[in-house]
């Protein structure tokens, strides 16, 4: 068997894959956070809760309505996105003019409410959700075995990241969005309905989290804490990458996922903290983050 650094090659590839998968979720979530932060100036602490809600909506669609995975990939983000629009309208809109920290506290409270409700209805152990038959099974690649669904998640995440990056950086709508981030009153004076743009941005960001939640549902157990567990790491990713650019969020997300995966091979106990250690090092060397503007 081929060995590298005293570790069998299939093990290394397996961990690399696991790292890329975790990285996919870090990238998708930190990207949504960055988009919302850019326009609303709010760190959406409820992002992890939205991810969790997305997974539960997919489960509910299947369990109660018999709607399968592929339809859930479309329906769940729309449902959660509309829910996000309502939250924006009812609560978040009221605090735009306040200190930036109030947004964090408000969404922190929202996350607690959503998580608590989910725990009440589904219990803390959660439910299970199966991948569609078309994506079950394992591919034999010669150097490793690749579960089809895992491969699908990686490809899907890359496509989602690319499409989002393209939409924000290369389209007219994206240009408006970036302009409104820079100078909302000027954009408004050009006849753009900025409050609506802001609301839709929040809805879209939240929908992105829900989409990640649907993708995660067959991989991890669908439970009320699934988002909270992930979001701490995602915050570290955001601090490391800085929230300056979407591309930065994507690269940092994948990069840290891979670092985490490899740490698991060589020093398993360290895999849970390696992202935070990297964060501390980056803060020492580049306080603004790798891609960030100073804040």
């Amino acid at each position, binding site marked *: 068997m081929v060995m590298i650094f005293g570790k069998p090659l299939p093990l290394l590839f397996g961990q690399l894959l696991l790292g890329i998968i975790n990285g996919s979720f870090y990238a998708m979530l930190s990207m949504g956070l960055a988009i919302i932060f850019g326009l609303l100036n709010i760190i959406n602490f409820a992002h992890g809760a939205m991810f969790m809600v997305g997974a539960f909506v997919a489960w509910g669609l299947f369990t109660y309505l018999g709607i399968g995975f592929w339809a859930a990939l479309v329906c769940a983000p729309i449902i959660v996105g509309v829910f996000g629009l309502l939250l924006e309208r009812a609560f978040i809109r009221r605090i735009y003019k306040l200190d930036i920290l109030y947004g964090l506290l408000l969404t922190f409270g929202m996350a607690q409410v959503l998580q608590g409700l989910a725990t009440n209805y589904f219990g803390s152990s959660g439910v299970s959700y199966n991948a569609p038959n078309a994506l079950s099974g394992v591919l034999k690649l010669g150097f490793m075995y690749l579960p089809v669904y895992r491969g699908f998640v990686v490809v899907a995440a890359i496509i989602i990241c690319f499409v989002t990056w393209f939409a924000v950086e290369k389209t007219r709508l994206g240009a408006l969005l970036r302009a409104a981030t820079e100078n909302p009153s000027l954009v408004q004076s050009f006849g753009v309905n900025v409050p609506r743009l802001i609301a839709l941005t929040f809805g879209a960001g939240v929908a992105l989290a829900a989409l990640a939640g649907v993708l995660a549902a067959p991989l991890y157990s669908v439970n009320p804490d699934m988002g909270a567990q992930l979001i701490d790491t995602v915050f570290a990713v955001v601090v490391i990458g800085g929230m300056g650019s979407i591309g930065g969020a994507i690269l940092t997300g994948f990069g840290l996922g891979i670092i985490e995966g490899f740490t698991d091979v060589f020093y398993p106990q360290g895999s849970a903290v390696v992202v935070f250690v990297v964060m*501390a090092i980056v*803060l020492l060397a580049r306080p603004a983050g790798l891609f960030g503007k100073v804040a």
Partner: protein
Amino acid sequence: MFGLTRHQLLGFAVLVVVVIAAPFVLYPIVVMQVMCYAIFAMGTNLLMGSVGLLSLGQAAYFGLGGYVAGYLVESLGLTPEVGIIAGALAGAALGTVFGWLSIRRQTIYFAMITLALAQIIYFFAVQLTDFTGGENGIQGIPRGKLFDVFPLTRDLAIYVVVAVIFLAAFLFVYRVVHSPFGQVVKAIRDNEPRAISLGYKATNYKWVIFILAATLAGIAGGTKAMVMGIQTLSDVGTSVSGLVVLMVLLGGIGTIFGPIIGALIVVAMQYYLAPFGAWVVVIQGAIFMICVLVFRRGIIGELAYRLRAEL
């Protein structure tokens, strides 16, 4: 006295009377829990109120203080005051390192960094089972004898100790806020570039406040471990960090009595709502949202506003 205004002196007198009377009316353990969380919240309020920095990782210092005190007393058989002092020092030491890292960034980044750093401590608490007991925590911490002389086994005996620590912490925080040092800190919060241009090293001032907050959290954690006789992973988790922020927000950010009222309400809520399970979390989250949306001054802040007094 200690530079308190008339309203504040009245408030302090009421506080002392309540602290003396409480154990005869209420269950002493719960009152002591309130005082421990109040110390914790006073420190967090220093950070939130005086410098305007929101930390979401205060549980790290609270939990570490508890683990250090619990370990020294339970495993090494040291006396309770040594445990609590060691807990305070451990909080201060960790606050020195984490503070140095986190004050490089502001506002939301600061909040995220403190949260992430606290996760490191949580993971160590899970991993270092020889020291923390892992999932089981440290059980059966003996209250022992204060100075190796006075036994603290009875609830009222340890109550006196906790009350003294609590009132001392209160006066200490008050003196810090109203000292020349505290005035500079306030100036930095209100206009940092201006304070810097006047020659104050803003970062160092914030760092000191951060360390003070961590030290108070360490004292609170150590004292709570001694009172309850148990130290578990839940004391070092993110939910405790959120809880202490809720206490400060509910009582009134930047007020001197607010953290105490906040601690009282949150502890009472947890105590009385415990049978309802996860609904506690829902209600806490809802209070968070209500405070932010319509009640930003908090209870004491609102009272102070109505009375036009500094409370």
